[in-house]
């Protein structure tokens, strides 16, 4: 009985649904403040102390707005895509060991790294469908750009995600985390840098911001959405960003590993280290976003096939040779 209650608590509150949503909103606030400060402004300041409740206010406000469905759209896809995208991403979080073990005991299985990467692709595909099903030329172009970008960058992403797998000799995420007595960032820094850049492209942030190019396609795939569906679409995007950062943390930065003072409450300290590491990645990623202008879609595609992909292949070869020939000697 207690087990079931604990299970429900773990799924719904911590480290499940509620924790993820609140953490996402917090990261959104952090991003907005960083962007504002780098632009010499203040950012949200009056909604809650220092504006920390701003993402929450945005979400609630969108929930109270009227929802308009274009009569020419494919209605079922239009209505379901945002919620499905959000659900898939939150589900993917279940496999990440946030406080040392995975969210739902027994969830983690051998090979769940590949499964999680597949979930990321499915979520991106659902975002594409969101744009495709609104009968609007801007949405179609935005959706096509989303598709082009994530399909292209998925390949180097998976290849680079295999680097920690090789270093840990396992493709189970919890095994990867527990074998990081030294974060893989130090053992394979080239893969880390490339992974961060590829993740930036996967998450559609500057300089790979093309699907959200306001000046060309208005709001891209989000153009026709309003009300609660828009709230979930925007939340899905924010969760996607946090998930990307969490993936980087888990694969390269040691996940929830960290010193446990006084030896007790390992879950609390594990969560704390995890949260701090994810925040660090979010900050660095936002810093990069603000610093760069937006590339054109053809430049993004060319960067992928001519630069990132060959480099990730080389990185994989380098990692494999290091793991099998050099490190055993050390």
């Amino acid at each position: 009985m207690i087990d079931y209650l604990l299970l429900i608590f773990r799924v719904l509150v911590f480290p499940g649904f509620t924790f993820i949503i609140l953490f996402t909103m917090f990261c959104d606030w952090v991003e907005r403040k960083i962007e504002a400060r780098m632009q010499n402004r203040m950012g949200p300041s009056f909604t809650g102390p220092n504006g920390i409740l701003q993402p929450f206010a945005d979400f609630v406000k969108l929930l109270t707005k009227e929802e308009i469905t274009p009569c020419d759209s494919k209605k079922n896809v239009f209505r379901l895509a945002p919620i499905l995208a959000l659900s898939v991403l939150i589900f993917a979080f279940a496999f990440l060991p946030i406080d040392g073990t995975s969210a739902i005991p027994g969830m983690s299985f051998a090979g769940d790294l590949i499964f999680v990467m597949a979930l990321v692709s499915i979520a991106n595909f659902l975002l594409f469908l969101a744009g495709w099903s609104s009968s609007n030329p801007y949405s179609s172009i935005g959706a096509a750009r989303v598709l082009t970008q994530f399909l292209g960058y998925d390949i180097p992403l998976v290849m680079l995600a295999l680097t920690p797998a090789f270093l840990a000799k396992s493709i189970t995420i919890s095994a990867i985390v527990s074998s990081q007595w030294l974060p893989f960032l130090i053992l394979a820094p080239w893969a880390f840098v490339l992974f961060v850049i590829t993740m930036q492209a996967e998450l559609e942030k500057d300089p790979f911001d093309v699907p959200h190019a306001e000046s060309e396609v208005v709001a891209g795939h989000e153009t026709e959405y309003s009300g609660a569906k828009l709230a979930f679409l925007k939340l899905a995007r924010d969760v996607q960003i946090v998930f990307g950062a969490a993936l980087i943390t888990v694969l390269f930065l040691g996940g929830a590993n960290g010193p446990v003072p006084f030896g007790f409450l390992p879950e609390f300290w594990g969560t704390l280290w995890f949260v701090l590491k994810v925040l660090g990645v979010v900050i660095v990623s936002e810093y990069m976003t603000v610093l760069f202008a937006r590339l054109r879609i053809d430049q993004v595609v060319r960067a992928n096939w001519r630069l990132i992909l060959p480099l990730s292949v080389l990185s994989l070869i380098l990692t494999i040779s290091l793991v099998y020939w050099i490190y055993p000697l050390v």
Partner: protein
Amino acid sequence: MPNNSIDIIRILETKLCGKPVQIIPGQLGIVTVKASVEGYRDIFKVLIEADEKTAISAITGIDLGANIGVFYHVRTSNPLLTIQVEVPKENTTLRTISDIAPSAALHELEVTDLLGVTFEGNPSTGHLVLPETWPDGIYPLRKDVNANEVKLNPEPPEEKSDEGKLVKIIIGPQHPALLEPEKFAVFVEGETVRKVEPRIGYVHRGIEKASESRTYIQDVYLVERICGICNSCHATGFVETVEKILKTEVPERGKYLRTIILEVNRLHSHLLTLGHAGLEIGYEVLFQYFWRDREPIMDITEMLTGNRVISSSLTVGGVRRDIKDNDIPKIRAVLGDLRKRIPFYTQVYRDEPSIRARMQNVGILKRDIALKLGVVGPVARGSGVNIDVRKDEPYEAYGEIPFKVITKDAGDTWARMNVRMDEIEESINIIEYALDNLPPGPFRVKVPRAVPSGEAVNRVEAPRGELFYYVKSNGTTMPERVKVRTPTFANIPAFLTTAIGEPLADVPPNFVSLDPCFSCTDR
């Protein structure tokens, strides 16, 4: 190539002797040639042969009672000259000259729209500035039409055009990239632009007609609000033209103060554009930084004129208020700060890889096309065409102040933005020189309220290019006709040409490098 005025008159006299023309030197520019309906095209051929910089500056249509006058104001390496043709109202047809001078196409369409003169051979159709619901056959600028009483047609249905595999994307009238409403139908194939169809006229308020029912002083305020960004230039263009008719000489101090206000206007406009370009390429930080540095310029404007944006400080005969002595060090301090920021911004625009990736080799406008289409301002100077009204036909105090005209040769978006970047430094130099050498004395002379009969043309260099004014007075306190030709109007054909064949994503930066101001275009 002749480059002083005597030669152009002699060339015209030589090549046109025997033709039914009347050459009047010194009127409406350097010379006015009154031509017949049949023979006016030959004059253009002569001019284009003689000077490569020949382009139509403006075409004024004016209701002369029984006839409609069509005045072609032509810009060459010399000051302006005018070619006048009159068509009777019963038969308002003229052959177009857009085949020999492509810069004329859009101007002719405007005369067709507002005055009803048909130009045979001009390929464009439909309304240019008047709304879609305007009934055909009623021409607002004709004297017998009371334009306020016109009953509009119901809204025509959206036309469905079948372009085959081309996807039609409509940019505007409400679009994040555009501050103003204009509609561009961009036909793309994949991501490449194949055709651009503009529809302007969303900001047409009927200012030229309205100026005929307001006094000259009221018109200064009206004309300023053609465009909030280059408002001082509009005011300058108008008051200078009226002063030419009145044959009034503005005192020296007034001229220097006007120059300072004009250059401050140019500074704020260029900073605006350079920041806006950042927004278009997704570089918000650049936009925020430029506009942050623009705020002290707005403070200077407020110090000089009392208003942040629309200065309202020029009047016929001078400026309305003097500069305070204890404001001058504050102005110098702001300019000094801006001057220190210039190396940083110049370096950003020159070296930043994302800017170069988005702006270099985008929207290339070659020099010969720029000359043929008659583009003006930084768009022309970015393609290597050295035209600047401040040097070609100095007005106000520009004749006495040394400054450089900045040109670049590449002709792409990057070159155009760099021209504006460098012009900021020149403007600061001009203002500081003017402040150093500000002559004492009166800054304004009183002028009579009723202006004697006459007409005059005038050009000023607005931040976007050459701004043209024609004013005709009839002895009353209200003008007979005011014609404005704004720089963006002359530059739109250049955008249409440079956008074709480029990716869709290049349309916003290309568009912004043109520095469009549609409230100027539509009036």
